[in-house]
């Protein structure tokens, strides 16, 4: 009987320690700065790219207006392959309703020209302030960014830095703020992000409608309310790398790098 008790105890001890470890600690994967990088990505994708696209499209429409018939075919294939362009005396309309560019009788390259533009939900007045320089003034009342983002304020000044085969390279100075409204099981969460360029920052159309930002930087401030209050500063620096751009993000006292 003593033997049996010993065996039972030994078996119980074996079972206790023989539990299988199936998941390792994820501590080594935790990167707090990653969420700040994500805020920067969201800002670029959902706020800056749609607004900058308005100017980019306006410049391409201007080229289209000035081109002869064969040149227009070429421009349509190159810049508007998914749209049908309808040209009227005072405006150019993208036939699927995603864009409208109303002229003031001048080329958008002429200093003083102001075009009322609508593209992918962004309504803005593009005004030429000098040679290859424009202000983009967003109509905050009628502009609709992709859900769940809404623009509260924005001032954007853009200069044409370069033009090459794959499009224009812009140099942009911008400041503004936007809000993200979401609801989850934890409740309604509101994220307000204030952003500004720390220096003129370059941008080029990269993937579809999205711009790649390089050589410059942003200061962002994020305020979260509802469920998980946070108020944090984010510093983003964009510098040239061997290939692409090195994105240096500083957040909560830590700095990390990403390659884009």
């Amino acid at each position, binding site marked *: 009987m003593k*033997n*049996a008790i*010993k*065996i*039972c105890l030994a*078996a*119980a001890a*074996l*079972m206790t320690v*023989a*539990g*299988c*470890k*199936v*998941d*390792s*600690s*994820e*501590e080594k*994967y*935790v*990167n*707090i700065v*990653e*969420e700040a990088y*994500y*805020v920067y990505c*969201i800002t670029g994708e959902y706020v800056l790219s749609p607004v900058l696209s308005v100017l980019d499209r306006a410049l391409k429409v201007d080229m289209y207006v000035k081109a002869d018939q064969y040149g227009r075919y070429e421009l349509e294939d190159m810049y508007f392959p998914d749209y049908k362009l309808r040209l009227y005396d005072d405006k150019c309309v993208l036939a699927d309703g995603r864009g409208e560019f109303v002229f003031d009788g001048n080329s958008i390259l002429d200093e003083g020209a102001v075009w009322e533009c609508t593209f992918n939900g962004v309504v803005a007045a593009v005004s030429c302030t000098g040679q290859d320089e424009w202000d983009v003034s967003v109509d905050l009342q009628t502009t609709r960014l992709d859900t*769940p983002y809404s623009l509260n304020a924005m001032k954007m000044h853009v200069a044409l830095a370069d033009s090459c085969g794959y499009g224009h390279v812009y140099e942009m100075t911008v400041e503004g703020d936007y809000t*993200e409204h*979401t609801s*989850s*099981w*934890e409740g309604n*969460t509101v*994220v307000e*992000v204030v952003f500004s360029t720390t220096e003129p920052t370059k941008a080029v159309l990269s993937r579809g409608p999205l711009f790649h930002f390089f050589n410059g930087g942003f200061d962002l401030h*994020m305020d*979260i309310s509802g*469920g*998980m209050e*946070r108020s944090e500063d984010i510093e983003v620096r964009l510098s040239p790398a061997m290939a692409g751009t090195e994105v240096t993000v500083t957040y*909560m006292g830590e700095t990390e790098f990403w390659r884009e």
Partner: protein
Amino acid sequence: MERRLSRILISAVLLMLASGSIADISARDRNEFRFWQGSELRLTWGAMPLDAVTLNNVMAGGYAVYGYGTIAGEIANSRYYGGDGYLSGAIGLTYTYRFRKWFELSGVVTYSGYYRDYFDKYTGNLAFKSNDNQISVMPYVRFVWVHTNLVRLYSGIGLGVSFLTETGQRGTDMTLLPAFALTPIGITVGTFVYGIAEVSLGNTGMFSLGIGYKF
């Protein structure tokens, strides 16, 4: 062939050593098989049970970043990280009654659990515990097709129900599920106190080891 035989022999010897019943065995006459109706208790541990606790957690995804599409979703999703996660395997307690030398009827209770702590990534403090527990109860019939005083070889089948509780950050969910065990082959070595090794499919584990007591 010789290597295989020697491995089987070594395994059998180890099993007998584990059961601690060598003295018990050696005291008996091995040539004369004696059957008597009576009861048995078994305590087993099975690796890789085919149950919800194991399947959910072995196949679970890792620490999530990106993909939620919103800043709030991203921050909420990556807020906590998991520590080491453990599966208990299937711990089983079986009562058996021997009706015939070839037929035994059992009641099996198994427990299977998963345990993991989650930590706040900003502070490193424990945020919440995630525990899944599954208790299965099933009647189980066993057919003994080799029976000597020392060794029994058998097959068996059981069908029952199991109760699953999953506790995490958002509270506890409870679910009732079917439970089963299909044992193509099992072996016991020993007479009164014996060691057990089984290959099964179901809630008792794919490979089980244990000890039993005949009375």
